[in-house]
């Protein structure tokens, strides 16, 4: 792999930039590997990268049904943050946030991480008490969080509606300055290129159709490109975890639901940070191209269709306009949706399954992108050693049967009531 650098770019300028090579190989699958990662999204590629770079396990294949960056990695709203209340969650996401801050350097690929700050708005005294508690919980674990007054929020986001007749009055916010956004495709491409350079085979257009069993244990997978054996197999297909795990006869605490997002035409900078409201279930940020990205709740019924109800998008936009009336003047460029694994406590699952040699990484609900480095790092540890790291040990599949759920929103087992 040739290293990307300003000097290389300059040198290429003298021969019409004709020196560029594909960023990763397109190998034929081998008969067997040490580890197979099913799913070539950001999480799967990060897993393969950390398996090779941290654990020296380089005989690894990433099997992708479609193409790299074509699934949920290219469908999220690119937010990166670690402002969660539950210690298990904020410790995992904070570990990831630290990796995000050095990721472009580590991968030699510009993932355009932009720590512009992410705030939760408070609309009432009760909201502010809850946000203060959230900030305190984060600071207890060494994570940055600042409680902002209404005037301080106005300095950061002057276009929010601070008038007396505001639809959603703003009392203040809690902001995490080290949070922000990143370029989602670049994350997949950067991890793919770095993993490939360490010897990982990235095999696209290779759908897993079944598991090869030896007794109870999984010893490989059947794919559309033939049978591939592996000492350990890791499912990493959030959105379709239920389907792929179902091929091995597993039932998961997951329902697949549609999550939609919206982007407007590109305009000059008008949203400085990432604005979120838990009371409203809506979030607003502005991409580097200038489009204002908005999203809200999932469609709240099971679907694998990657298309949702217009009413759900309308609801999210109405709330965003209520917060920032100037948004109503923008034209909508497009809406899209992705299939998300809605787990029954709102937290992910990273760890072993009841089947020998088969591991699961899924259940990311609507918050998987921010965790890409942490998810890959902890899953790589789990796949390399066979046991979870302390960071992902709480996110076991058994927790739903033992009662040790990690219920950030506190609404119990029904994902559609979340």
């Amino acid at each position, binding site marked *: 792999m040739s290293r990307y650098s300003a000097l290389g770019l300059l040198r290429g300028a003298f021969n019409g930039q004709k020196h560029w090579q594909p960023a990763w190989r397109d190998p034929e699958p081998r008969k067997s590997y040490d580890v197979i990662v099913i799913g070539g999204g950001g999480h799967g590629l990060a897993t393969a990268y950390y398996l090779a770079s941290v654990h020296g396990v380089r005989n690894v294949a990433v099997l992708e049904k479609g193409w790299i960056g074509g699934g949920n990695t290219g469908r999220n709203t690119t937010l990166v943050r670690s402002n969660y209340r539950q210690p298990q969650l904020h410790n995992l996401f904070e570990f990831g946030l630290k990796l995000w801050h050095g990721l472009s350097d580590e991968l030699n690929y510009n993932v355009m991480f932009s720590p512009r700050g992410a705030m939760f708005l408070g609309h009432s005294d009760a909201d502010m008490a809850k946000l203060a508690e959230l900030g305190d919980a984060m600071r207890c674990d060494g994570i940055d969080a600042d409680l902002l007054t209404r005037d301080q929020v106005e300095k950061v986001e002057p276009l929010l509606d601070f008038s007396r007749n505001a639809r959603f009055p703003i009392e203040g916010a809690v902001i995490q300055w080290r949070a922000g956004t990143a370029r989602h495709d670049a994350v997949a491409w950067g991890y793919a290129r770095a993993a490939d350079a360490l010897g990982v085979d990235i095999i696209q257009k290779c759908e897993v159709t079944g598991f090869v069993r030896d007794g109870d244990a999984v010893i490989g997978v059947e794919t559309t490109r033939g049978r591939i054996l592996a000492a350990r197999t890791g499912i990493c297909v959030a959105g*379709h975890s*239920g*389907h792929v795990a*179902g091929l091995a006869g597993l*039932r*998961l*605490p*997951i*329902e*697949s639901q549609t999550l939609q997002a919206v982007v407007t035409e590109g305009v000059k900078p008008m949203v400085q940070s990432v604005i979120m409201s838990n009371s409203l279930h809506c979030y607003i940020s502005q991409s580097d191209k200038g489009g204002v990205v908005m999203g809200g709740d999932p469609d*709240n*019924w*099971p*679907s*694998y*269709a990657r298309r949702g*109800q217009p*009413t759900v998008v309308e609801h999210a936009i109405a709330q965003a306009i209520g917060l920032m009336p100037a948004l109503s003047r923008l034209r909508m460029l497009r809406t899209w949706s992705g299939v998300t694994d809605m787990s*029954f406590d709102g937290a992910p699952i990273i760890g072993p399954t009841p089947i020998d040699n088969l591991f699961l990484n899924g259940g990311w609900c609507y918050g998987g992108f921010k965790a890409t480095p942490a998810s890959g790092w902890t899953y790589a540890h789990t796949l390399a050693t066979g046991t979870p790291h302390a960071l992902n040990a709480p996110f076991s599949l058994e927790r*739903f*049967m033992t009662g040790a759920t990690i219920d950030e929103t506190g609404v119990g*087992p*029904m994902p*559609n009531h979340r």
Partner: protein
Amino acid sequence: MYQIDCPHCGPRAQSEFTFDRPVEAIVPPDAAAADALQALYTRTNPMGVDDEVWRHTYGCRAWLVLTRDRVSHAIDAVRALGPEALS
């Protein structure tokens, strides 16, 4: 899926309806603890047709069972919730 044919009200916009749970996640009152846990906390979650409990929340408020494809969103049948719908 933009219309659901309510057996009581006729075809209505899907936004009048809310999803509750798959039929398999109904916990019988006399279920053993282990079976109740399985029903509450695991799903088949098929990439295909499943039976689901919905409610015409913003209409007649009746509970319904939909046989619905989760990929195409096609609805094969809508029945009022009752012993016949679950058999």
